[in-house]
């Protein structure tokens, strides 16, 4: 049955959309969405004071539940407290603090440059909330990847529906039961469930959708969004290449690559996924990598409190299957009971091996050999644009060459994903690794509609007389004269 195009938005006029979504079933989210939409329409979320109160609530949520959150992350991912602190709690605190300190500036109208005809007018960009927004977050950084977009959505004045991942079960519970105590119940709601529930949720109309997850599901989200022309940000993934030049200090490189690869047991969208280097460099890197692993996690990494575990049996088995690719020069052990995979480096890996077909998302680091930097760049360019790209070399020209001749969401030279700690740079993907960007003010911008406003004086009609018909050749001559004398600034028609 064709869903009719109705002129109403689901606000004051009750929208028949809900019951018509599917002839037979009833929308379980109708009430929640109506509540949020009514709250948004009432204007509740617009004043800066309201937004600040909600942001302070988020801050208190983190402060008052720090131990609970650390324990929750340990339960879901065996996340070491240090990792949890810096990648989840502290980064979120940074974002909240930034928003609290800058909200008024962010909300201000942006004045813009005017042209000749509009000199006496008021021209500015007004930042407006979209309305009822949806944030779908994944399981690997279940707190950070939910809270960071939420901070921006709140700062921008929206109502938000949160859909945390059902795979990080413990955090899902905390988001459902503890977080709501700190936020306005009419403006924020949490929806729980798996793919089935998410599919039904996505049949509803949202004014913005922020999705973090895989490219496969990203397509589904965008397709669902297209039914309502809902704008979206997709933070997806890919295989992040890591080029290591011959001209480098192997131990420094090994330390950096190992730390970023094995952080969160490799379950990071921006982790270096595989290394490209020459055979000689590989020979130098391997002992350095082993050194790094031993330094970080001891002789028996399974006993180290500083190494995480794989989120689920499904992913554990997936990763264990990859261990057989090539040869494990370092690590290669696994333990099903603990869902433990040892920090592993694979060599003699072929481009066609399964480990090179999908994003690894685990503590496995394949090394592929290339003869030269050009071969490495050609290899990278053949594949989908990744979320992150890394190049290590003492020679800055080499680093810049890789940067210039490739494309990726973000780029790290001589280090891993430290750019994630910077709120002043936008973070986002390109191509299959995503669309849109966020972090810091960019999150506020992502969740805002930038409305161009021109307020003209009702007087001074004389200036505008030239634009009215009837037109004569004189009109055209005058226009051409003005154009030739380049009296126009950022303008189309004068």
């Amino acid at each position, binding site marked *: 049955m064709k869903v009719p195009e109705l*002129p109403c*938005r689901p606000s*004051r006029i009750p929208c028949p959309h809900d019951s018509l979504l599917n002839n037979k079933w009833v929308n379980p989210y109708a009430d929640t969405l109506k509540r949020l939409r009514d709250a948004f*329409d009432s204007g509740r979320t617009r004043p800066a004071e309201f937004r600040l109160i909600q942001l302070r609530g988020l801050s208190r949520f983190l402060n008052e539940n720090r131990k609970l959150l650390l324990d929750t992350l340990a339960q879901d991912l065996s996340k*070491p407290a240090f990792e949890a*602190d*810096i990648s989840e709690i*502290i980064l979120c605190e940074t974002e909240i603090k930034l928003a609290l300190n800058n909200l008024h500036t962010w909300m201000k109208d942006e004045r*813009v440059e*005017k*042209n000749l*005809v509009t000199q006496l007018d008021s*021209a500015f960009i007004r930042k407006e909330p979209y309305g009822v927004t949806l944030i779908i977050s994944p399981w690997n950084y279940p707190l950070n990847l939910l809270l960071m977009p939420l901070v921006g959505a709140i700062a921008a004045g929206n109502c938000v529906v949160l859909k945390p991942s059902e795979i990080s079960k413990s955090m899902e519970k905390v988001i459902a039961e503890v977080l709501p105590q700190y936020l306005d119940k009419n403006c924020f709601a949490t929806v729980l469930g798996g793919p089935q529930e998410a599919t039904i949720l996505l049949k509803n109309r949202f*004014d913005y959708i922020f999705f973090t997850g895989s490219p496969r599901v990203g*397509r589904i989200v*965008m*397709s669902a969004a*297209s039914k309502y*022309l809902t704008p979206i940000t997709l933070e997806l993934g890919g295989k992040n290449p890591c080029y290591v030049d011959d001209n*480098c200090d192997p131990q*420094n*490189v090994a330390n950096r690559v190992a*730390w970023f690869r094995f952080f969160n047991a490799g379950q990071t969208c921006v982790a270096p996924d595989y290394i490209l280097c020459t055979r000689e460099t590989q020979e130098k890197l391997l002992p350095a990598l082993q050194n790094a692993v031993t330094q*970080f996690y001891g002789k028996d990494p399974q006993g180290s*409190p500083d190494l995480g575990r794989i989120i689920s049996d499904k992913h554990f088995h997936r990763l264990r299957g990859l261990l057989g690719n090539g040869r494990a020069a370092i690590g290669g052990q696994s333990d099903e009971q603990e869902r433990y995979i040892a920090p592993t480096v694979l060599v003699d890996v072929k481009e066609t091996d399964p480990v090179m077909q999908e994003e690894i998302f685990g503590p496995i680091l394949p090394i592929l050999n290339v003869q030269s930097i050009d071969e490495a760049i050609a290899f990278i360019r053949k594949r989908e644009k990744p979320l992150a790209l890394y190049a290590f070399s003492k020679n800055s020209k080499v680093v810049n060459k890789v940067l210039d001749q490739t*494309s990726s*969401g*973000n*780029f*790290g*030279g*001589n280090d891993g994903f*430290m*750019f994630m*700690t*910077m709120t*002043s*740079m936008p973070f986002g993907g390109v*191509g*299959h690794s995503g*669309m849109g960007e966020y972090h810091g003010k960019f999150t506020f911008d992502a969740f805002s509609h930038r*409305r161009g*406003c*021109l*307020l*003209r004086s*009702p007087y001074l*009609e004389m200036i505008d007389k030239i634009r*009215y018909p*009837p*037109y004569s050749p004189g*009109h*055209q001559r005058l*226009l051409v004269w003005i*154009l030739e004398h380049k009296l126009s600034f*950022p*303008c*189309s*028609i*004068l």
Partner: protein
Amino acid sequence: MEQLVLRARAAFQTGRSRPLSFRLQQLRALQRMVQECQKEILGALAQDLHKSEFNAFSQEVVSILGELDHVLEKLPEWVAPEPAKKNLLTMMDEAYVHSEPLGVILIIGAWNYPFVLNIQPLIGAIAAGNAVIVKPSELSEKTATLLAKILPQYLDKELYQVINGGVKETTELLKQRFDHILYTGSTGVGKIVMEAAAKHLTPVTLELGGKSPCYIDKDCNLDIACRRVTWGKYMNCGQICIAPDYILCEPSLQSQIVERIKETVREFYGEEIKKSPDYERIINLHHFKRVTSLLEGQKIAFGGETDEATRYIAPTVLTDVNPNSKVMQEEIFGPVLPIVPVKNADEAIQFINQREKPLALYVFSNNNKLIKRMIEETSSGGVTGNDVIMHFTLSSLPFGGVGNSGMGAYHGKHSFDTFSHRRSCLIKKLKMEGANKLRYPPNSQSKVDWASFFLLKRFNKVRIGLFFLAFLGILVAITVKFQYC
């Protein structure tokens, strides 16, 4: 279709569209094209839309020349990497955002401003270093054919291509993979474009439409307001995405508005409007019939004359229009102006909010507070206060819709940003590994505390300077004290 797109992609992969000098050269070539082929361009527009030379020049060609001037001047600034503020952990590193081309862009233009709506996005796409496929609307046939002829004469033939065709060809084209699609047209087709883009995870900019409301307050200069509304409404025979679609006003104002618009129409187009060279025609029979059918059952205050042979519809005003009638259900896109009476501004705001977010909102009032209130309590793509259309002409304002009226924006630098990927780059040195030891396991609580210090504080020269000064002050105080002891 696939071959043509692959050709553009292969040309992009060579990297030749990236250097600034190449982009500037192509834009200058485009500028020459507009100047040298002006007669032909104006001729094509005249044939497609019955547009007079002046109208075609002032509404389409001038816009493009202005945009080209602006982009040629600013592009060197736009392509430069933007340095980013660093934190304590990254203070020794290079951090910047670099705008990069996306790859192959698809621009699908509309028929109402067939030149501007294809070329203005093209300018932005070239400026951002991309390859481009332009698909003009088949409804504005002559302009589409002309573009296919002249573009290859001035621009790189492989990087920038024009593909013509109808629904079938466009559907085929949408199956191919692009790196960004900019579509101008209707809401219905916008959904189809976004759905097709989803298969390839292609970002889109959709410039759609809607019913742009125009509220006329009783406290306003009615003469000027009506003159401006008349100009904006009947321009291009009402076939503008940001035309004031309908008027909202208090019932007592209706007859005054009608009178003034009637007078202004006479002033603009003369007694015999059909004979005015400045008044356009409806694009084709289908739309002529569509717009004419909207007049059924309506109170025609003036106008209403039609002539199917020439697709002429007179400038028309309807009064006491019922919000549920057909003319209030779809974007009119024609020279028919309904007036819907409302009690006051509150009711007007309610009326607007009950409907889909429009591409533009217009408010006429001497009371600035009222204008501000109407802006705050509604949403729309853009706003012009005390005039119509004009926000489109200021390219420092992002031009785009929201909700059903679209997503994304362009014009000026906003086009450059739309067609670029902003890539964040953080480049460290491979030495000073000691500093990194803080982050490596084995971990401890003290490491967390240090991390907290470094991450939560930004690299603030002033603060550090002050701290240093304070430290110096203490040192001096201690030294002096010691000297006296």
